[in-house]
């Protein structure tokens, strides 16, 4: 740990060059709410820390024709204070707002929460349900990647050496669309999700569900995008029968483990419960 270097470049290209140059011995510092814990615990010992908070593109966000482009390092508290953003992508912003305490909210970011690649990250299922797209920059230029394709396993991402997530795009919402995210924790705050469920659905004038995406967190090595859950809703009025099918589909999709935070039985059952409850909230938001 002694002699760890710190750099705070002002452009994405510099940052990715620094990362590429450090051949894997570097870490990106956004909010630091995961990185500093890992450093302190000796879980990681990088030679270089690249602070991306001097890069304007990564610390600001903008809305263009209803679509939001959010810098990967924008602190959650800043997003939550934007009434319009909160009003449109309520589920995503609320999900990110669940991460840690008020103090964590002042630092933690969507990009950090995603790239830390925890299976229990709260914002990830919500972003997946919302069809969020990452812009990834690296030595070979930029590419767009759906959020669900970033994490490949606990602590593992599909980012190549020198690549960083620069922004996260939340698309313009079709009318009569609502999203919601719920998680289960033993307390009311400060815990890691035992199960998480994100739902985004769209209704037609008649109130029939025409599109839906359902994602589950903490019940597999990465957040799951569960087509069967969506199918349970699409074409229905999201009535009790649909909800029961959604519940069953979520339980079927969940493949959790026993650990200090929950049992297989518990996580399986609760994934169905939360999918149902999140869908009910999303439905209400789509309707209003």
């Amino acid at each position, binding site marked *: 740990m002694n002699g760890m270097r710190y750099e705070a470049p002002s452009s994405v290209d510099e940052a990715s060059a620094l990362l590429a140059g450090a051949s894997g011995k570097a870490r990106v510092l956004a909010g630091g709410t995961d990185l500093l814990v890992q450093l302190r615990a000796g879980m990681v010992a990088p030679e270089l820390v690249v602070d991306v908070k001097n890069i304007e593109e990564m610390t600001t966000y903008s809305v263009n024709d209803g679509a939001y482009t959010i810098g990967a390092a924008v602190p959650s508290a800043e997003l939550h204070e934007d009434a319009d953003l909160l009003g449109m992508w309520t589920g995503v912003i609320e999900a990110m707002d669940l991460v840690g305490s008020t103090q964590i909210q002042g630092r933690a970011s969507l990009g950090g929460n995603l790239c830390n690649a925890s299976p229990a990250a709260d914002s990830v299922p919500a972003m997946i349900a919302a069809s969020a797209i990452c812009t990834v920059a690296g030595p070979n230029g930029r590419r767009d990647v759906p959020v669900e394709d970033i994490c490949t396993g606990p602590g593992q991402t599909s980012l190549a050496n020198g690549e960083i997530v620069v922004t996260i795009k939340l698309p313009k919402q079709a009318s009569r669309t609502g999203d919601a995210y719920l998680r289960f924790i033993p*307390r009311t705050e*400060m815990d890691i999700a035992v199960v998480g469920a994100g739902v985004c659905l769209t209704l037609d004038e008649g109130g029939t569900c025409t599109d839906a995406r359902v994602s589950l967190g903490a019940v597999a090595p990465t957040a799951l995008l569960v087509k069967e859950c969506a199918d349970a809703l699409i074409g229905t009025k999201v009535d009790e029968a649909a909800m029961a099918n959604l519940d069953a589909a979520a339980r079927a999709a969940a493949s959790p483990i026993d650990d*200090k935070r929950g049992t297989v039985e*518990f996580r399986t059952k609760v994934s169905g*419960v939360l999918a149902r409850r999140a869908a009910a909230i999303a439905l209400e938001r789509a309707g209003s």
Partner: protein
Amino acid sequence: MDGDTNGYRWIGTRTIRPDGVDKVTGRAAFGADFSLPGMLVGKILRSPHAHARIRGINTKKAEVLAGVKAVVTSADFPEILPAEATKGSSPPNYRHLSQNLMAREKVLYDGHAVAAVAATNAAIATEALSLIEVEYEVLPHVTGVLEAMAEDAPILHDDLFTGGVDPKPGKPSNVAKRVEFAIGDTDAGFESADLIVERHYDTEGIHQGYIEPHAVVASMAADGQANIWCSSQGHFMVRQYCAGLLNMNIGDIKVTPAEIGGGFGGKTTVYLEPVALLLSKKSGLPIKMVMTRDEVFRGTGPTSGSYMTIKVGAKQDGTITAAEADLRFFAGAFPGAPVHLGCMCGFTPYDIENVKAVGYDVVTNRPKAISYRAPGAPIAAFGIESAIDELAKKLNIDPLALREKNAAKQGTRTAYGPTLGVVGFEETLEAAKNHPQMSEPLGANQGRGIASGYWFNVGGESSASVSVNEDGTITVTSGAPDIGGSRASLCIMAAEIFGINIDQVRAVIGDTTATAFNRHTGGSRVTFALGAVVIEAAEDCILQLRECAAKTWDIDIDAVEWENGEARPAGDNAGKFEPLTLPEIAEKTPMTGGPISAKKSSNVQGPGPAFGTHICDVEVDCETGHVKILRYTAIQDAGRAIHPGYVEGQMQGGVVQGIGWALNEEYIYGEDGKLQNPGFLDYRIPVASDLPMIDTVIVEIPNPTHPFGVRGVGEIPIIPPMAAVANAIENAVGLRLTSLPMSPPKVLAALDNGD
């Protein structure tokens, strides 16, 4: 209750604590806030194994690392032989304490200290730890109490034979001792019962969870004289234990107490101090050691977990005819589970003719258990108060009414022998019955639970001095750390006795050279015991003040009375003199015999035992097993509340610790015997958003043995909550939960299995 202060001027008022401003401005110096020039950083290497024989420790590489100034292992500590284990009649067992500080032949738990280093900075000290080579022979381990009692269990100590059984056992065991408390004939009592309830209950080990990690700065000179600055529940305890462990003269050690950031019993022993002294001796420099949170959980004492069997029998009319408890507590790596206290307190709230409580103190591969708020009593109360609730339900009697029918009162014989003196249990039940919460309507999946608790309270060795300063202000110096506002209560009592304004009195905690010995802060003793000594010293000062006035007026001291902070002639025939105020007399002391002060020391006896009764409302989410505390009321006999604000604070804090114990707190060990949740992320103490306001009702049945009637208040509030929550859950969803914590997975499983 603040309206009526019983004719007192200060007793029962909410004054501002003398140490308050420093604590709201960040100026108060806690354990880790102290430093000395040239200070080194000390760190401890801890065992990664739950149970292993140490084949060898090689510290050479660490010693030669640049910046490393000293390395110590158990070889540097004097070995304490069994014959020398106890000095005098009281704990601790120094042999065990020494082995717990630094493992000798074996490591006995994940986190057991095996070596320590001192270096010029933290990074070097950390690197040095990684260079120490320890050769372990890993042994089979056992962390559960029943598993540890099994015939074929791995044995922790070859020299540990079960005590309290005859004939004396021939082979070593993990059961350190068996205790039994009994009155009457329980077999006959159960014979005459119309209904009997019997169940097993179990609880996990939990930690006191103080927010301040253990911290010390120690400096030992070449001549063996030492200075220690640390936060603990007893700086005299630290001095005594260090001397006993390192064969030093007590007089060669001075301990200065830092502000203490919570203890709850967990800081009633030493972990770092003797190690820091040895590192300082070896390096010739001062040493600072501060535990990480991980070390606090893995290396310091949690409380026991347990397996209990509770059996209670009653007549149809609710008269309890017999009660039995079989309590098996694990003590961690060394004997000393508070199981005897659980046996003694458990059934004491009830007047029962036939009682038998048997306890087992069992060692396991966990950190050595240490006191936690009313040691033993909350564990026993979880089982017993759950059983009383089940009994009430089966008898179709209101749980509060059943308790009233069998309530202990003055003259009730306890299972541990004595009869109770003046106590206020019935008054707490009465207050519960009349509390508005009892008539709050309950919705679907909501329930209400009642539970009670008993604690002896403790007195003990107490020393303090009271000085009348030159300007007539008063300085109170005591020797027991203030962990919850006791300086405020000592000021109040002194101001009341002197009859002067509270801002004329300041209380400080003196170091080990400022007063004679004080037993550590714990057992809810300080306001009671130190209060008694301070009152005695203040009265002595008043006698001297009257003497000064008598000399000034040239009349007999009996002709001088003390009232409202001034000396007055007692009646007209004493002579006509203008009253002399405290400042006026203080000014005159150079001419009237010199400074006025009084030092008092005594082993204060007769603490008033006390009872509490709690009401808890919960709501259960039947799809997730999540339990929400809707409303909570704690009712307690405080004897006399000196500072109601801090009495309420003790009650509210104890309740919330109990709620954490009930719902989420637990030590989670893996198959490998390693602690899986050594941090505040997964060791889940309650957060503000988990809770409602905690209502309190202070009942005041004065303790006849204390001048102001004080009873201890700190421990009782943690005794009833676990059962109160369990009883509320049962009332909400009809399920009797018998295993702590009642975490969502357990509650949901119970709901699904309908058991």
